[in-house]
């Protein structure tokens, strides 16, 4: 088991290194134009440009430049860890920008994740147990709606109904938890639900499908033959086996949202990481885009590691292999 984890860990580091290399090339080597020019702003002098080139290591060969980049990324720079350099927009360190945006995104994902995991699985189990009943049909109809409804439309509709018309929730924008916990929740509840809806639908379908498949297995018949109650058969035997795949995609879905919840963050004006990345694309602020993309990629790589470990933990056949 320890060897397994160690192997996965090494592999994750390799993946992260490759991701850093690819993003570096895509962001700094492929775009036309001189990064120093962009960085310097309006009409710089030659002396200024030379200084910037030196500071960004643009005057050295590619591999040295990349070496510095990697070194900063892994060991940090004067602004802390990981070293991501400065934004093109003013002299703000990218890291500082990310640190400012990250809590918004993390709270959004965490809340939504809890909601979709609990409700998605609950709906899926109910559906499977009451297969072909009205409950099942309604639940699966709802799932289809959740999968096909566009997030921006859901977001705007929910804001209109629950904030503007009914005044049940806060409007768009973000209020820090430390500043006003009640407002924090009332502003996040709609984004949580809207973001969770799609995943909830996917998880409900997945749970239903997995559980139905598992309930057809021979060992479920054995469980019944022992004289266990139907409850024990479904929850202890059926659910236990069918949740493993769900437990292992959950971290991946969470990680993918670190830079990927753009629409939700935009509709609800939460200004999180996804929003930051998209905004920086429009202003051609490459270091910031790069920072968010790298962070997202690292999160996905780590989530993969977590998923693998979780899988081994949940399935003895992997653990003892």
């Amino acid at each position, binding site marked *: 088991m320890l060897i397994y984890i160690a192997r996965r860990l090494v592999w994750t580091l390799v993946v992260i290194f490759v991701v850093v290399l690819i993003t570096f090339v895509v962001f700094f080597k492929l775009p036309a134009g001189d990064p120093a020019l962009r960085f310097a702003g309006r009409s710089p002098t030659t002396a200024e440009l030379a200084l910037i080139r030196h500071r960004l290591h643009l005057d050295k060969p590619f591999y040295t430049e990349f070496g510095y980049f990697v070194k900063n990324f892994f060991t940090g720079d004067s602004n802390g860890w990981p070293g991501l350099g400065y934004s093109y927009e003013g002299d703000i360190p990218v890291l500082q920008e990310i640190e400012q945006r990250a809590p918004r995104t993390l709270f959004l994902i965490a809340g939504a994740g809890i909601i979709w995991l609990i409700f998605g699985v609950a709906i899926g189990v109910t559906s499977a147990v009451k297969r072909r009943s009205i409950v099942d049909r309604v639940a699966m109809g709802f799932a289809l709606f959740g999968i096909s409804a566009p997030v921006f439309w859901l977001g705007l509709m929910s804001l209109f109904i629950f904030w503007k018309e009914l005044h049940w929730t806060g409007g768009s924008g973000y209020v820090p938890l430390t500043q006003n916990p009640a407002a924090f929740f009332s502003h996040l509840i709609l984004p949580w639900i809207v973001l969770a809806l799609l995943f909830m639908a996917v998880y409900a379908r997945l749970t239903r499908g997995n559980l139905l498949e598992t309930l057809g297995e*021979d060992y479920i018949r054995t469980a019944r033959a022992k004289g*266990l109650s139907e409850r024990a058969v479904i929850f202890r035997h059926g659910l*236990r*086996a069918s949740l493993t795949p769900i437990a292992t995609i959950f971290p991946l879905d969470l990680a993918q949202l670190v830079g990927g919840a753009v629409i939700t963050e935009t509709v609800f004006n939460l200004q999180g990481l996804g929003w930051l990345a998209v905004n920086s694309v429009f202003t051609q602020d490459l270091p910031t885009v790069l920072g968010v993309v790298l962070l997202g990629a690292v999160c996905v790589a780590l989530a993969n590691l977590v998923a693998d470990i979780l899988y081994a933990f*949940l399935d003895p*056949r992997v653990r003892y292999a």
Partner: protein
Amino acid sequence: MSEAGSGATLLEVRDLSVRFRTRDGVVQAVSNLSYTLRRGETLGIVGESGSGKSVSNLATMGLLNRSYTDITGEILFEGTDVLKLRQEQMRRIRGKDIAMIFQDPFASLHPMYRVGKQLAEAVLAHEDVSRDAAWNRAVELLEAVGIPNARARARDYPHQFSGGMRQRVMIAMALVHNPDVLIADEPTTALDVTVQAQILELIDRVKREFDCGVILITHDLGVVAETASHVLVMYAGRPMEYGPAQEIFTGAQHPYTWGLLESMPTVEKRLEILVPIEGSPPSLLHPPSGCPFHPRCKYRFEPCDGERPPLFRLPDGHLDACYLPPERKRELWTKRIGAELGVT
């Protein structure tokens, strides 16, 4: 019927029919099946794949999904008709008074729970004891079915066991509550030959030690030759021949049974005279008229595709469903089948 050594009636199946309502139509999986099981006896149920062996016994266990299954007839367990019991009442019998072992030991145990836990769970399903007591009972049972080093092995997962060992675990699980009826559904089909004999021997030993009745389901008459006291031959959901094992093996009446006997590998018989039955069983969605076996039968004549043959009772008490006149059957048996098998 020789009554020597047979105990009280445990199970009496009367005119059992099972139909599945499927999307393609009604599958007539079992038709008009009757048999009796007594304490201390082994009833061998034999037939090709799809002949309704599993379905009829799943009906006894109450493991058929009644929402799309119609069951008629009676299954009397110690006098009560289990088909009339409510779910909860049936649950209390399942695994306690009637236990079942399945064909595929690789798929029949939960891959994510320790073997000991799965056994302990069976204990706790019908008995209010502590977890530790249940675990100890699990270990005892593993020992009883011949798992070496049982206390340590109880902590292993099913995939760490071989097929034969897993089938032993399944047997242990069936024995937890000292059942009256033990149903073994092709317990050796998935195992290799050397292990097969051990498992059959174990089941026979268990029958004696736990003093229960055993239903042994198999494709292969050879498997029941050693241990069965009675044999029921099924085909396309119907009883073809039913009687004391002794009489089936020394004077089988039905051409289908003859086919099974001829295709049975024995030590004396050389491989070249192994004759498989030609053709394949009929669709149960559209069963043929008359005797279901007639399309494949070498000895069919006029009445075979008309009226369905009833079960004829022979003087020795054994039943068979074939229109051939008794003299003709005796002649065929003595001259051909019995002679080939060397039992006449």
